[in-house]
């Protein structure tokens, strides 16, 4: 029985090294170990190079809770809650990134935006927001990070279901809604994606990346061929920093 492929590659390398010790061998260019959003390259499967703007999210920092009052936020989008049971057959297969333009059925024009909720609803949400415990906030942040970890690996369904689960616990986290919007967009559910972006933008109106994602979504709907990968993933830089050990782990709970 012949042993493993990697072993044989190594064996051949050793033989080549021994035979050509004095021969200069041109080295192939190294593949970057930097993730695609950080390197400014394509996501897996995407055809065009996208501008990475996620650093802005760090520069802007978390939104203060006071921004919520100005958000005129609505309740957690019912579509998102329903999507727990909705079929996702229209989206790409699990573990695969979509390649090329989105399919025609998701290119339909987006429906008009809905009116903002009443002040009473906003007030109730704010109370709920303020009653969150530190553990709740930390858990949400962990789920967010995990979702980003899944997104890095193209595990869209896994990320979606965890984000939906987290939103069921904390429906007022702007970053959760933004990232869920990205997943919906990736899975071809643009109506749900728009609702999530809008909700995130209302929760944190000062955060430009949510508006930018909404804008990208609109442009993608208007102009065929605009890839959906130009969206901004919120929380990713912080998650990276935490993994590198350069960010305070639990000092600042994720922004509202």
């Amino acid at each position, binding site marked *: 029985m012949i042993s493993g492929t990697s072993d044989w590659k190594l064996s051949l390398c050793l033989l080549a090294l021994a035979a050509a010790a004095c021969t200069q061998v041109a080295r192939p260019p190294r593949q970057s170990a930097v993730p695609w959003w950080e390197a400014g390259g394509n996501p897996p499967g995407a055809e065009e190079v996208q501008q990475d703007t996620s650093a802005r999210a760090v520069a802007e920092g978390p939104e203060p809770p006071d921004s919520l009052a100005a958000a005129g936020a609505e309740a957690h989008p019912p579509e998102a809650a329903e999507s727990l049971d909705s079929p996702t057959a229209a989206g790409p*297969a699990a573990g695969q990134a979509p390649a090329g333009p989105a399919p025609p059925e998701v290119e339909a024009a987006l429906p008009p935006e809905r009116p903002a909720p009443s002040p009473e609803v906003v007030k109730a949400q704010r109370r709920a927001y303020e009653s969150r415990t530190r553990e709740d906030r930390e858990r949400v942040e962990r789920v967010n990070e*995990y979702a980003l970890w899944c997104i890095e690996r193209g595990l869209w*369904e896994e990320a979606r279901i965890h984000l939906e689960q987290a939103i069921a616990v904390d429906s007022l986290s702007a970053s959760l809604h933004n990232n869920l919007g990205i997943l919906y967009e990736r899975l071809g559910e643009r109506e749900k994606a728009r609702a999530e972006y809008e909700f995130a933008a209302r929760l944190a109106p000062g955060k430009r990346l949510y508006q930018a994602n909404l804008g990208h979504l609109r442009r993608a709907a208007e102009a065929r061929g605009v890839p959906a990968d130009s969206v901004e993933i919120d929380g990713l830089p912080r998650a990276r920093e935490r993994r590198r050990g350069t960010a305070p782990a639990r000092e600042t709970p994720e922004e509202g």
Partner: protein
Amino acid sequence: MPTMNTAQRRIRAGALLLAAVLVWPPAGASAQDILSSQLRQGFGKNKVRYKDFDWHFVESEHLLLHYEPEFEDLADRAVDYLEEAYVHISALMRHELSTKPPIVIFKSHYEFQQTNIIQAFLPPGVAGFAEPLRYRMVIPFNGDLDDFRNVLTHELMHIFQYDIVNRGPVRRISNPIARPPTWIMEGLAEYSTEEMNTIDEMVLRDAVLTDRLIPLEVMDSSWNYLPNPFLAYKQSHSLMEYLAANFGPEKVSRILRVWDQQTDTDRLLERLIDMDMSTLDERWQAHMRKRYWPLLQHRDYVSEFATRVVDNDEIHGLYMSPEWSLGGDMLAVLSTDGVEQHVDIIRVSNGRRVQRVTTGMRTRVFDDLTFGDGTVAWAPDGSTIALVGKDGPKDAIVLWDLYEKKLVNTLSFDDIEIVEGLDWAPDSRRLAFVGTGYGQSDIYMVDVATEQVRQLTGTSRREDHPDFHPDGRRLAFSAKVEGQFDIRVFDLDTGRQSTLVATPGDDLWPEWTPEGDRVLFVSTREGINDLFLQDLGDGREYRLTRTLSGIMNPSLSPDGQQLVLNTYYHSRREMYRMDMPTMPELRRRSDELAARVGAEPVAAAEATAAGGEDPAGQDPILLVEKGAADSAAAGLADATRLGLEEAVAILDRKADSNQAMKLAEATGGGAGPVAAGEGGPSPAGALEDMGDALRRDTARLPGVPESALEGLPRRRYTPKLEFDGVALQMGYYSGFLAGVAQLSMSDLLGNHDLTLFTDYVGSQEINNDFTFAAGYSYHGRRPTYSAMVFNWNQYFNDNEGRGPFGGYYGIGARLTRGLVRSRQTGVLADMSYPLDVYRRIELSYSFVDEQREIAWPVQEPIDGSSTHLFKAAYVHDSLNIGLLGPTAGRRYYLSAGRTLALREVDRNFTHVEVDYRHYLRLGRWSVLGLRGTGIGSLGRDGLEYNLGGPAWFLPFYPGYNLNVGPLRGYAFSKFTGTRVALVNGEIRVPFIRNITFGWPGTFAIPAVDGAIFADLGSAWNKDQTLDPWPLQSPHAEIDPAAAEEVRIQGGVGFGLLVYFLAPLNFEFARRTDFKDISGWHMHFSFGRSF
């Protein structure tokens, strides 16, 4: 895996050294050899004795069974089983044992691993062993009484085999390792147990259908190097069944006696059945093909309806116990590549690894990952993965947080040693599992937050595969009832059980669908594991598969849309994914598969007997016993094999009417399928418990009557030394004929070892002095102790020329050199305390007094010295070791020693030594080995160590135990000094794995590796200095002042490492002083590379 106890290793090393010094006395051999033997540190993992066992024994008619009172019930069962097996095997082999074999049982595998009867590490796959010299059998209980009975029977057959082959005490001593071919020994042992189960059949059937049967000639010659030993066992079993069915059971009885007269397998078979080995193999294979190939017409390959998850053709790659992630994108699996075992998260879509869960956990969190059925579980909320690792003496559940990618908790439980079958409740707080401890296995549930444990079942029968209902209030599981697994449901609110599925075969691995109204399960009703779905709404059962290979470990995705499962294909366990059919599709498919039933050519369950021609020969076990049917005991033995109903009848005949009535009630209440919901507070569980107890009573009857069993003498075990073996060595050196005799003794449990040595020196010139050494070691507690006292004389020529005539002495007209006698007297004492499997602390004290004198032709003292040496060491060893050397992990030690100089003539030095080795995997079998070591023997009388040549040249070569390590390119022990530094780097890559040659004869070479290496090192003395910078200008002038400066020496080269009976190393190296480089030098050495 080297696991020799440190104390024992010391004794043996000391004994070998003494023997070596005598038989090959190198000039100048002295007390230094003994001291350096004590100082040089050894590696190796520890056999940790976690428990202070309280051994008792019971003596029955044919055996002595050793057990602990805490599992006396299990011991009673074992006596029943063994006496029954004795009757059965005795009739089969037509032989009575010459002595009562001592049998030791343990209540779990982890306690079994602590036995001292064998020093080797006992991995989880080892179900027990029997040793040929003292006929000891050692068996652990694995949680299933039927398996326990089978292993007891299997090992007892080995005792019969040893007794037949090595008749009489002389042959037992002189011929303990001369054994018939392993396929005959193991085939007979398997043949004596019950028929093959469906997993055994699965492995054998796959080998036939994929043309991967192992040729009989290869099994005969290369058993130890077979890549699939499990298949070899099953083939051997099948061959014995074939022999019995086609040539008569008496051939099986005769085979060992024929071997006694003719040890060549070909001739043995010709004498037995008038057929050589290749003809037998050809006919048996033809028989197997006729048996299994018709299945192809009516059964499906799994690949026809499912997709392989992991596209990996490596035979050592294995993925099992799949568990779905919350989103259905990933699976958590147990995986191994043949070197390491891990829990991995892989993508469902392509099988590629996303995350390794257990990185760095081995040695830090647990000793070893428990690689069993259902030892991984992914919590329904998707955030936590539970896995099982052996931590000290028992399993612990390890909880790993997926969000944080870190370990969050470990849970271990009193009295539960083995954990398997994990399943999370829907709330992701409670975890059900199968726990084995105190002689039985049951289902438990633990709240992972509060760590509160609840025992759900409590019978002696085997329970397995718990699966929570989606409402979290019920639990389905497999339970063995009347020798077969049914699926039962435990109501967590009421604590009641009911039967959910009970088909004629085993019903295993229940999986609730997400709606909770159907249960997916595996049934073995036709002898092949197939998938079924029980619809609790309409009460119908649907068949999902009719496979060729069989199905294990099915796991439904959280949405119920997909299914992953294990099957056995191409001699390894494969993982497949299939879509769950919709109900209309399922109905159509089930009807289509059911329609094939009438056309099924062979019901594999019925085809387990090998012969087709002779129905009477289908169960040779019963046939033999029925031949002795007059005996009531034999009749009852039949009864227990036939099942409970027949047992009822026999009990009835025995006028034990009360017991029979109880038994009938119990079987009536517990048998037969009960639809869900009907069970309610039914007394089924209680009745089955009663049935269980009665079955146990029934099982008692065959071998020993109940009253006799209860009256058997039981006593506490007291150690008594018994003879283990004797070794004799003879040698001739420079006019001496010298011999060493070694006598070894130990107690039955191997806790006490005593070894005695003496020698004989034949010479015309000297009288033989009294020479002896006695070593004792004790392993009965966690710290181990050893001690040796010795008074050893050795002789060598006076090469220094002390005689009056130019160094010679005059004897008559002849001049001759004198003879020097070196008398070494002393004590060696060691203590080793294992912190865990991988780490230990060692302490030792040595006293050696050496007196040298001219012994002939005059008697004149020369010199003498004494040494009191204290040493302490810390050792870490977590290596994985392959045939040719380490494959992964690291090992290191730090040791320090100091002498106590009480007199001026006493030796005075300080010893420090460090050795660090790290092995990095570069591929599946490729490894980069790095090593750095340094020794300093500081002070007036520092010991001198050697450097140069390969690591291990020849045993007993002069200075072999003082050679520090490989510095290839130089002669063996080229450099000498009290200080040594050495650095090695070596890359080993595999060239060949498992190649079998057909000429001359059939033999196998299991591994050939290639290596490139570089060594740097130097040895120097107190008055010299080491220049650590190896490079020097080729034009540099030699500075006389630097004459005492020692430079680093180097060697580079390549090697071919071949495993053939032992590791053989052929290495080619060039040496360099970093100014010039030499030509090629070849080294040959034995032993594993560093």
